[in-house]
Every structure is written in C-alpha cells, then in structure tokens.
C-alpha cells in the first residue's frame, strides 16, 4: 500500500460514512425545517396568529394558532425525538447494543 494503491475497503467505508452523515443531517434537519415553516407561515398569514389580532378572540383562538402549532410540533420533534434517533444511528454504526 502507498498513496497510489489503497485498500479496496476504503471507498466502501467512505460511502457508508457519507450515507450515515446524510441521514444524521436529514433527521436533525426535520425539526428546524418544520419550525422554520411555521415561522414563515406566521409572517405570510399573520391574521392566523391570535397574538397579532387579539380583539374579540375566544379561548380556542388563543389555544390553537395553526402557525404556532407547526412551530410547537417542530420543536417537540427536534428536542424529544430526533436526538435519540441520531444517537442510536451512530451507536448502531459502531455496533453498540440497543439502549433499551
């Protein structure tokens, strides 16, 4: 082996690492993209956010504001679900036993 002749396993390993990196990035991006979608929606249709137009609004208008609901779902996924999936994806690649 030298700089011109390398192991045949290396390209396969690189491809696997690249694929894993892409999947980690994709899972980590799902939550923030959803949050961003909710924020963009709130600016595009501010009348759907009760905080911007509070006059005469009832309980349900305050409790359920669609763009904020999207932000909430994105945050829930990003903070509760995604980190564990990324950890498990990396530990699975290392061959660790499941955390349970």
């Amino acid at each position, binding site marked *: 082996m030298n700089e011109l002749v390398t192991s045949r396993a290396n390209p396969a390993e690189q491809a696997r690492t690249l694929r894993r990196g892409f999947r980690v990035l994709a899972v980590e991006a799902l939550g923030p993209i959803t949050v961003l979608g909710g924020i963009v929606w709130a600016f595009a249709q501010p009348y759907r956010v009760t905080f911007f137009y509070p006059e005469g609004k009832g309980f349900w208008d305050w409790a359920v504001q669609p763009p904020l609901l999207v932000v909430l779902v994105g945050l829930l996924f990003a903070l509760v679900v995604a980190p564990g*999936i990324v950890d498990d994806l990396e530990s699975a690649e290392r061959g660790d036993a499941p955390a349970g």
Partner: protein
Amino acid sequence: MLPRAETAHWLFAGGFLFLGLVVLAEAMVGTDVFRRRRWRAYLWPSLALSAGAWLWLIAIFSTFSTLHLLAHSVWAQAATAAGAVQLAVVRGRLHSSYWSLVTAGALFVSGASFLVHEQNGWLFARSAFLHHLIGWTLVVSALFPVGAAFLPRRAIWAYGFAITWIAVAVMLFADRDIAPIFGHLSDLAGGAR
C-alpha cells in the same frame, strides 16, 4: 365551549404532522435503528389510537348531521383498528407483513368516507375542496401499505406513508369553516363574505 370544526381540524393537523415526522424519520434511519428505544416504536400506534379516541369524542358531539356522525365514526373505527394492529406488531404478537393491509384498508375506508360524505362539488367552498382532496389523497395513499405488505423491504412505501401524513396535515391546516377556494365560494355555502 366546544371548538369550531376548523379548530378541531387544526389540532388533528398538528398530530398528523408529528406522526408524519416520526414515520419519515423511521423511513430515513430504518426500522431496526428506530426501534432501538422501545418508546419510539410505540409512537405511531399510540398516535393512531389517540386519534381514534379523539375521533370517537368528536363523533359523539357531531350531532348536527347524521352523515358527519357516520363519517367521524368510520374514521374513529379505522384509526383504532390500524393503531391496535400496529400495537400488536410492535409488541411482537403479530409478525406477518400482510398486517399492514389493515392500515391500507383503514386509509382507503377513511378516504372513501371523506368522498362519500362531501355532497358538494370541488369548488363549492374551501372545505368541500379539501374534503375531495384529502379523500383522494387517502384513497391513493392506501397503495403504500399495500406495497409494504407485498414488498416489505422497499423503503419507498415508508416514505410515501410519511409524506401522506405531512400532506394531510398541510391540507387540514388550510381548512376554514367558510372560505373561498381559488376565488370561488358558492352562494349556498353560507356565512358573511
């Protein structure tokens, strides 16, 4: 104190969006990695069962029309059946990939129920348009679990299933009780314009 129909639809949209993200993440990393923590495996069946329970609640209060009561009951029954079967699959009681045909049936029946109980045309009002669109989306998306039953190793079925719920969430978020669709709003739709 009961919420308006559109408010209930937005709440369901939030739930479906979360379900879509969860199922999409599972499609991305694979079932083995996704189920390394048991609680994650229970997310989709528990969300389906919760949706079923809430839909039964809505069915109880949908007394303004027999058709709506029946439609909500059908959705509740479909969600409960799909969630229960998926729960049994996750717990290891059921093993065959053909059990995803129950999910396919639930999607098809739910979609058909949307189409049957909407008696107005596509451009009658936004809610009518969305009933047609969601109905056809669910009917067509029933193909994804069918594919998963017969070709379970193909990831495309899981991606399709996940995208379906995100799309349904977007459609439900777009719902308003009375609103025009592409500038059209029937005189018979009611409400102030």
